[in-house]
C-alpha cells in the first residue's frame, strides 16, 4: 500500500477497491515510464480493443484473427504512474513455431515486462487458458483480463472469476472492453501487480511423467546456479529439452543473466493465493 503523506490513513483510502484517480491516456507520448505492461492473448480476443481503450490510440481492430502482426506500443497513466503498454501479436501458444509467436515469446522472456495482461475470450476459456498457462510458466506477474463477458452472458455462460483467480493464482478481472466495462478494475489490478501490492503465485502446469521430472531436476538446478534469480528456470529447461534454437542461443550467450529492470521482486516465502482484488 502506498501511504498517503497528506492526510491520516482513513480506511477508505487504503481500501484496494478505491479508485485511484482516473485513467490518463498518453497515446504515443512515451518518453519515460514507471512500468512496462505486455498485452498478450489468443488472436481475436480483443487485445487491440483493450490497447486502444487504455492508450487512446487507434490501432485497427477487427473481428478477424491475426489482425495484429506487429508489436504496437502506447502509453497510459494511472494513479500517478506511467505505464508503457506493448500490444503483442495474438498467438495460440508460445512454442515459437511462427514469427508472431516468436515476437510474443521473446518479448515476455527478454523484455521482462513488469506485468503481463493476458486477454482471454470468456466464451472460449478452455482454449485460451492453454496460452495463459504457458505465459505463467515464463512469468507469474500476470493479470487475467476476462474479456467479452457480454458474449458469455449472451450464450448463457457463467464464468466464476473468483474461482479462476484462486486456481491460477493471479488477479482475474471480468471485462467487456468494447463497452469499457470493467476497465477501472482491470487498471487497478495491473497497478497492484506492478507496484507489488499484490503478489502473484502463478499456477504451474503439472508434468506427471516421472521420466521428465528426472530429466528436469538436474537441468533446473544447473540453470539456477548459472543464472541466479532466473524466474523461469523450469520453462527454460523444458525449452532446452525441446531443442529450441533461440533459447539454446540465449543460454550460450548468457542473455538470461542480464539484469532485469528495477521492480519489486516476488518474496521467496509462499504467499497465500490471491483472489481477484477488484471485482
Amino acid at each position, binding site marked *: 500500500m502506498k501511504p498517503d503523506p497528506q492526510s491520516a490513513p482513513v480506511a477508505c483510502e487504503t481500501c484496494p477497491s478505491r479508485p485511484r484517480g482516473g485513467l490518463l491516456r498518453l497515446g504515443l507520448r512515451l518518453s519515460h515510464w514507471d512500468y512496462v505492461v505486455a498485452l498478450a492473448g489468443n488472436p481475436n480476443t480483443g487485445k487491440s480493443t483493450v490497447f486502444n481503450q487504455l492508450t487512446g490510440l487507434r490501432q485497427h481492430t477487427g473481428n478477424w484473427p491475426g489482425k495484429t502482426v506487429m508489436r504496437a506500443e502506447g502509453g497510459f497513466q494511472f494513479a500517478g504512474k506511467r505505464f508503457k503498454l506493448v500490444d503483442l501479436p495474438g498467438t495460440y501458444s508460445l512454442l515459437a513455431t511462427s514469427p508472431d509467436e516468436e515476437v510474443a515469446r521473446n518479448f515476455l522472456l527478454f523484455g521482462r515486462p513488469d506485468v503481463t495482461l493476458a486477454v482471454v475470450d470468456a466464451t472460449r476459456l478452455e482454449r485460451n487458458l492453454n496460452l495463459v498457462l504457458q505465459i505463467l510458466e515464463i512469468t507469474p506477474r500476470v493479470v487475467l483480463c476476462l474479456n467479452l463477458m457480454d458474449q458469455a452472458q449472451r450464450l*448463457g455462460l457463467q464464468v466464476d472469476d473468483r474461482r479462476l483467480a484462486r486456481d491460477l493464482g493471479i488477479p482475474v478481472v471480468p471485462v467487456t472492453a468494447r463497452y469499457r466495462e470493467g476497465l477501472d478494475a482491470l487498471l487497478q489490478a495491473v497497478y497492484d501487480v506492478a507496484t507489488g501490492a499484490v503478489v502473484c503465485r502463478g*499456477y504451474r502446469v503439472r508434468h*506427471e511423467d516421472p521420466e521428465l521430472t528426472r530429466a528436469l531436476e538436474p537441468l533446473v538446478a*544447473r540453470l539456477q546456479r548459472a543464472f541466479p534469480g532466473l524466474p523461469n528456470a523450469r520453462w527454460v529447461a523444458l525449452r532446452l529439452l525441446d531443442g529450441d534454437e533461440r533459447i*539454446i542461443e540465449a543460454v550460450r550467450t548468457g542473455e538470461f543473466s542480464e539484469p532485469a529492470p528495477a521492480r519489486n521482486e516476488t518474496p521467496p516465502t509462499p504467499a497465500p493465493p490471491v483472489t481477484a482484488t477488484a471485482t
Partner: protein
Amino acid sequence: MSSRGQSQREEILACAQSLRWELGAQFHEKLVESIYADAARIAARAVTRPGATPRFDLDRAIDRLVTSRRWGIPLMVLLFALVFWITIVGANYPSQFLASLLVDRLYPWLREGAAALGLPAWLRGLGIDGVYLATAWVVSVMLPPMAIFFPLFTFLEDFGYLPRVAFNLDNLFRRAGAHGKQALTMMMGFGCNAAGVTATRIIDSPRERLIAMLTNNFSLCNGRWPTQILIASLFIGALAPPYLAGLVSAAVVVGVALLGVLLSLAASWFLSRTALRGEVSTFSLELPPYRPPRLGQIIYTSLIDRTAFVLWRALVFAAPAGAVIWLVANVRVADASLAEHLIHFLDPLGFWLGLNGVILLAYLIAIPANEIVIPTVLMLTVLTTRLTGVGGGAGVMFELDNPADTLAVLRAGGWTLLTGVNLMLFSLIHNPCSTTLYTIYKESGSWKWTGVAAALPLALGFAVCFVVAQAWRWLGAG
C-alpha cells in the same frame, strides 16, 4: 562474461543435449498434452452452463448456411454483388454534387481570382488547371464510392463474415498448393495490397508466405475499385436497359474481382509447381463468433482509417501528377506537346493490347498510386482529341458531372467497348503500386522476389489484354 560462466553455460547445453536423447520423440506431445489437460480442468471448474439444453444457436445456424458446401460460395458472390450495387447506385448523386461544387463553381472562381491577382499564365495553369483540378477530380470521383463501399465492407468485417469467406476458399487454396491462410491475406488485399502483404506474416512457412505475397496484387485494392466501378457503369452498365444498369455494372465488378481470385489461385498453383515447390502445411482456422457490429466503430474505421487514408494518399499523389499532366500537355516539342508525342509513341503498343496510348501514359504517370489513373486518362483524352466543348484549354481537366458526358469524351477519344473491357482487365492485372512493392521488399528482404512481384502480373496483364484484343477483333465484335 567470465570464461567460468562460459564453461558453466556450455555444460548446461551439453547436459540438455544428452537428456534430450533419453527423453525421446514423444516428449513434445506429452508436454503439450499436459498443458491442455490442465487448461481443460481449470476451465471446467470455472465455467458453468445454467441452461441444460442450449438455446437456439443463431451463430451456428448462420454458419451452417454461409459455409455450406452448396450455398457458401453463391451466397458470398451475391452478398458482394449487393455491396457493389449499393455502392454504384448510391455514389451517383453525391458525385454529381461534388463535381458541380468543386469544378463548376469553385474552379472558374479560382481562375478569375488568380487572373485578378495578376499571377502569370504559366503559374495559373500549373496551379489551378493542373494541381487544383487534379485534386478536385480525385475527390469527386473517388470520395462517394469509397464513403459507401468502405462502411459496408467494414460492416461485414466487424460482423465476422470475412473469416467465413476464408473458410469457403480454404480448400481451393490448398489445392492450388498454397497455405489456407492465404485466403485471409487475400481478403485483406481487397482493402489494400500493402496491408495484405504485411498480413502474410501469419503464414509460417516461408515458401507459402512468398506465394501469398506475390499473388496478393490480384486482389482488387481500394485504389482500383473506383476505376472498375466507373468503367463498368460507363461501358457495360450503359448497354443494359436503365433499370438494370446498376445491377449489371455490379455483376461485372464482382466478375472482375472473382477473376482476380481465380488468377490468384492459378498463379499460386503455377508458383508452387515451379519456383516454389514444397509441402503444403496444415493449420486450424478459428471462426470467430458473430458480434453485433458497432455503428460508431464502423463509421470511424471506414471513414477515418480507410476512406480518409486512401483519399489523402490519392490527393498527395494527384497534386504533383496534376502538375506533371499540365506540363506534358503544355510543353511543346517541335509541332506538338510532349503528351501528344508520348501518346503517339505508345499508341501502337496500346492498339495491340486493345488499349491506347492515353491509358498506357496514364499508367506511367500513375505508377505511385492506382487511384489517379482514371482522372489522368480523362484529362489526357480531352487533350489529344481537342474537344472544344469541354475544358478550358490544353491540360485542363473538365467539368464532367454526369457519366454520360464522361462517356462522350471517351467515345470521342476512340474508345470502344473493347477498350473499356481491357482497361478493367489491365487495372486488375498489372504491377503493384510502389507502396506495395516497397512493402514486398521489406517483408521478403529480396530484390529478386520484389522484381518477380512486379514483372509477373505485368507480363500476365499484357498477355491477357493482347489475347482478348486479338480474339475480339478476330470475332469482329470490336
